[in-house]
């Protein structure tokens, strides 16, 4: 029997990582290379009146807005964020200039001796602040995006409802905390700009640098260095660093290295959007959810970045896995004088799923019915319509997945034994159900990205995969090689994948949105099929495929109607937790998970994504706290911002139960982001279950729990009297 594609193979990047010879951006040393550090705003919002630099020693330079040859605006969705501040700064840490030179100690001294005179402007820190009393940061209404979504007839649902239930949920910041901080090296030779960097999206960086320099596209080349983790954090921010570094390289006429220090990276780079979500649902006498009216507010930070798209994903996920026919959603991404919120694994969906899952649980409790049964009675099935009216075309395995995860976790038995305990330590169980729309939201793949993939075969019949998608730890290189090897029926050792270099690879789009396997993997598969059809031994040949929007799907971006995604991956998680009722510390006893990802391309990489995603999700739900006071993050060093260590992690058991997706390579769908979405929810529900309290925000910290529990006791006491 032929090997199944899911059987693990050795990754091509593992040997050099084990030997310590992999070349990350910090290991790359170019001849005569200079170093750059960033002079940053210390005010959350102010006009720059004057900047007094100390006298620059020979070989040291200031690089600022005057040194940008093209547009001093980072190319993103909305043109609002400068590479170097013009006359206004909008957050603490906003870059004003680079100081460039040979010795980092001297650069740091020069920065500390620089005096900036500010004229303060009244800042906006909270999404609640009415901008009428201040000047908006962006536009007239201080929102980077304000959308509305309607499906069915919400007023009819309201009229028919027997019960109405309304809740508000909040989620906090989360920092990606990739182990390797952000960094780029820029060099400029004979009119050609080359950027090496720790990046997710080579063509995003390229397009940004082209506009920054105002040059022809072929005069910019981007090369990805081995990347030490990214999780969304290296999606848009590297464009900023690349533009700054190339301006510096042009000015000093030498290669310039711009690497962020850990604490600097924590404080100034993008993070997951904090959210506030209001959900009101309308339920009939049979406990069917007739309608939902929701309002989502995201804290976008000082510039637009990717907030509009994050907001769309949050809005489209707001009904969770439930079939709700009448929906009204209002979404806003609000400008605040804080670091820019951006992409992080899940991209708006962890916030939305937390809200809807906790809400469903709470509705059932209010109605005094079994929460899990209530949720299962309302879940989506094949043929039902999404929030945007798109059709769920494939079979949805949620019922089977729930049954399996309950079996794995011994759910029913545990549930019985945990009940009614009055021990100091209480146990609780939580179960979350969720999906992730794979690939870009809406018309992204069809109208914006239009990805291309190319295969080149040399005279030795070695096939090289040319795509812009990066290996950043997730195993994309191996996944792509396996797809090509299987499609061409040649040994995997004859298939090559190298880090992308935009002078060699076509634009297959960014490495984001759980699109690499399902979208780019399919392009690569189709190219392999084409190559196979015309295969001539010992002859150099190539095949190129461009993305085709699959037939039968439709999307209208004006009205948000149709198929927001062309495929969905699904997950069910159970978390078992023990909470101490005196210290309110909790210990996670176990996590059980079942995922439908269509088809595993490599079981080992899949396991790695699942384990890692679940633990990142538990960090989000349980311990990763980042608070902003007066525009300054309180947790801005790696000693203050706590991520899970080996001590914090529980036993994790996971299985796959897959419904293949016909448009995906070998049936595969997306996985990377899905794996993070469910664990924070199941964790929060487990804590609710253990203590018999309501939780409406994450992270669930002991001090927060103590507050909730004490309040509950007081309220309980009041009602008793």
């Amino acid at each position, binding site marked *: 029997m032929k090997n199944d594609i899911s059987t693990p193979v050795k990754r091509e990047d*593992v040997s050099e990582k084990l*030997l*310590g010879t992999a070349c990350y951006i910090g290991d790359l040393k170019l001849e005569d290379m200079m170093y750059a550090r960033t002079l940053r705003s210390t005010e959350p919002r102010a006009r720059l009146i004057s900047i007094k630099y100390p006298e620059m020693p020979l070989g040291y330079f200031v690089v600022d807005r005057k040194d940008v040859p093209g547009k001093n605006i980072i190319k993103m969705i909305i043109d609002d964020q400068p590479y170097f501040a013009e006359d206004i700064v909008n957050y603490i840490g906003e870059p004003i200039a680079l100081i460039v030179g040979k010795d980092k100690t001297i650069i740091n001294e020069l920065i500390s001796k620089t005096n900036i005179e500010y004229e303060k402007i009244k800042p906006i820190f909270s999404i609640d602040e009415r901008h009428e009393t201040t000047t908006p940061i962006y536009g007239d209404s201080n929102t980077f995006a304000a959308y509305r979504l309607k499906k069915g007839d919400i007023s009819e649902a309201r009229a028919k409802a027997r019960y109405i239930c309304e809740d508000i949920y909040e989620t906090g910041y989360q920092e990606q905390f990739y*182990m390797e901080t952000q960094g780029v090296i820029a060099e400029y030779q004979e009119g050609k700009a080359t950027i090496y960097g720790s990046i997710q999206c080579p063509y995003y960086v390229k397009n940004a640098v082209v506009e920054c320099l105002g040059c022809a596209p072929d005069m910019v080349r981007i090369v990805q260095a081995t990347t030490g983790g990214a999780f969304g954090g290296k999606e848009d921010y590297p464009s900023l660093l690349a533009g700054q570094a190339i301006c510096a390289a042009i000015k000093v006429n030498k290669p310039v290295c711009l690497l962020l220090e850990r604490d600097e990276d924590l404080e100034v780079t993008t993070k997951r959007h904090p959210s506030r979500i209001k959900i009101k649902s309308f339920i009939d006498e049979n406990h069917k959810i007739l309608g939902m009216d929701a309002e989502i507010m995201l804290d976008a930070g000082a510039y637009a970045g990717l907030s509009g798209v994050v907001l769309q994903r949050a809005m489209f996920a707001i009904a969770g896995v439930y079939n709700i026919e009448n929906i009204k959603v209002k979404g806003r991404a609000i400008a605040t004088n804080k670091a820019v919120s951006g992409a992080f694994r899940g991209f708006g969906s962890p916030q939305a799923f937390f809200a809807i899952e906790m809400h469903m649980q709470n509705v059932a409790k209010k109605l005094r019915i079994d929460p899990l049964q209530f949720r299962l009675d309302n879940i989506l099935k094949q043929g039902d319509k999404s929030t945007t009216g798109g059709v769920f075309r494939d079979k949805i395995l949620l019922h089977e997945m729930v049954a399996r995860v309950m079996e794995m976790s011994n759910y029913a038995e545990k549930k019985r034994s945990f009940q009614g305990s009055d021990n100091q330590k209480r146990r609780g169980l939580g179960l979350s159900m969720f999906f992730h729309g794979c690939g870009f939201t809406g018309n992204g793949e069809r109208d914006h990205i239009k990805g291309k993939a190319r295969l080149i075969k040399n005279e030795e019949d070695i096939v090289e995969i040319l795509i812009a998608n990066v290996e950043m730890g997730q195993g994309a290189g191996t996944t792509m090689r396996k797809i090509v090897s299987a499609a061409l029926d040649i040994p995997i050792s004859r298939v090559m994948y190298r880090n992308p270099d935009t002078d060699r690879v076509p634009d297959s789009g960014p490495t984001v949105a759980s699109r690499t396997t399902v979208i780019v993997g399919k392009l690569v598969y189709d190219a392999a099929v084409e190559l196979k059809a015309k295969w001539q031994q010992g002859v150099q040949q190539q095949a190129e495929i461009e993305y085709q929007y699959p037939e039968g799907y439709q999307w209208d971006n004006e009205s948000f109607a149709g198929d927001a995604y062309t495929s969905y991956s699904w997950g069910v998680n159970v978390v078992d937790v023990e909470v101490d009722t005196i210290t309110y510390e909790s210990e996670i006893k176990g996590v059980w998970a079942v995922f439908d990802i269509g088809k595993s391309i490599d079981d080992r990489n899949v396991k*790695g994504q699942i384990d890692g995603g679940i633990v990142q999700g538990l960090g989000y739900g349980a311990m990763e706290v980042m608070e902003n006071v007066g525009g300054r993050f309180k947790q801005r*060093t790696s000693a203050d911002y706590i*991520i899970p260590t080996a001590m914090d*992690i529980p036993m*994790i058991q996971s299985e796959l139960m897959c419904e293949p997706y016909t448009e995906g390579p070998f049936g595969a769908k997306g996985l990377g982001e899905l794996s993070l979405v469910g664990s924070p929810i199941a964790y929060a529900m487990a804590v609710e279950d253990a203590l018999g309290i309501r939780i409406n925000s994450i992270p669930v910290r002991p001090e927060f729990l103590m507050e909730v529990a004490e309040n509950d006791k007081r309220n309980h006491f009041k009602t008793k009297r």
Partner: protein
Amino acid sequence: MKINFSINNSAKSIEINPSETLYEVLNKCGFSSVKKACGTSSCGICTVLLDGKPIPSCSYLAAKVDQHNITTIEGVQQEAELLGDLMNREGAVQCGFCTPGFLLTIIAMKKELVNPDIQQIKNYLVGNLCRCTGYEGQLRAIRRYMEVGR
């Protein structure tokens, strides 16, 4: 100032600045397997062995290693290959940035702890952060590695 120490069992005598950290000195000497991330001994990325015990080289003064032995991943290639193979089989190598520091810590742990239970293993690893794997793969690999040679 001048310091004399051994690195991966070869004697070295070099001129350093008294304020330099061990990481900086190793980096200048070309040991690029030693990475730096936090600079405050919070993450374990920069781990090297000092007389066989793991230390964070990013915040350890180079002057203090005078007359001591330093080991980097280059110095334990055989052991690293054995453990690395187990790590690879368990999918515990992803972005790879924490890998050299993690391997060194585990190699030191095997020498230091006799028959550790899972809690002792986790305790030993608490200073080495990994953001990709959730530590599950590492722990599976470590359990198998601790069996080797028993």
